[in-house]
């Protein structure tokens, strides 16, 4: 009888051990759980590139005083590209570094001694705006992402004290 009881105890122990092993093998999701969700977000992005790095006025030939030079006449029309922008933009130009000797005419001024004037046009000079150093001039408002050609005009000084 004692032996039988012992066997029963052994069987119970085995059963409990097996149960514990089975529980240990159950995926951990029973002891924790998770769920996921996404955030989607898109920011205002404005990308602007200009297709040329430079305009060598008059193809590098010394310019005459009191003369006018155009990018469109030299096949150097610029193109502003905002294709990658996610919003409409205003495109502006500003002279951020002036010539060493020649300086840009201030707003409304004309070319003078050692003073040049730079203007811009989107429509081959039907309309034009002056580009100055003190602030950025809008050349195109509410431009949808894409490209916008523009031309520059330089009015050379009427007198120069130095040759650049």
């Amino acid at each position, binding site marked *: *009888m004692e032996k*039988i009881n012992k066997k*029963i105890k052994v069987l*119970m122990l085995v*059963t*409990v051990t097996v*149960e514990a092993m089975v*529980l240990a093998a*159950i995926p951990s*999701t*029973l*002891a*924790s*759980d*998770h*769920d*996921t*969700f*996404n*955030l*989607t*977000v*898109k*920011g*205002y*992005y*404005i*990308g602007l590139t200009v297709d040329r790095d430079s305009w060598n006025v008059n193809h590098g030939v010394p310019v005459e005083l009191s003369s006018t030079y155009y990018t469109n006449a030299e096949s150097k029309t610029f193109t502003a590209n905002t294709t*990658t*922008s*996610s*919003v409409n933009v205003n495109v502006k130009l500003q002279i951020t570094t002036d010539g060493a000797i020649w300086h840009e005419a201030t707003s409304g001024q004309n070319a003078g001694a050692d003073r040049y004037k730079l203007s811009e046009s989107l429509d081959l000079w039907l309309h034009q705006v002056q580009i100055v150093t003190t602030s950025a001039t809008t050349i195109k408002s509410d431009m949808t992402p894409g490209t916008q050609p523009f031309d520059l005009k330089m009015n050379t000084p009427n007198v120069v004290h130095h040759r650049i």
Partner: protein
Amino acid sequence: MEKISRKIKVLMLVAITIGTTILAGIPSTLAGDSDTFDITVTGQYITLAVDKASWSVNSGVLVAMSRSYYTNATDTFTADSTGSSVNVDVKLQITTDGATWHAATSGNNPAADTYKLNASIDTWSTQVQILTASATIIKTNLAAGQQTFDLKFMSPTSTTTGTQQTITVTASAIAS
């Protein structure tokens, strides 16, 4: 001698008979028996579901830089642990970051192409930052039931992309 042998045989026979009789009287376990008992066990069970699959920040409209956007305007989340057999801690973690925009690390603020995500369960009386590096507890010892929470998305100070960013957040529940 022969008589003695006979007597012994008789005695053995009697003994065997008595033995058989006794054995017959013993409960049948001696000949084979069985009994059953049950082991009952219930594991800690935790279930968690979030009621929304996504939050389109600013209702899908382009976000401005250096701005904060909140779910509590229209998109408060609810974490549901109804059915769990134990109290749980609810955690949030950014498990997939944006392609270009990345989450600010702990204690840091938005920067170029870097956003910050915070969560609150009390409409911003208190808040915690949600990170990629580890899960942040937003609610401890939640009894089986629901817990609302809001998110605040702080946009980068500048961006190098106009492409939509998708950020995956994982909400998890573990036994408290």
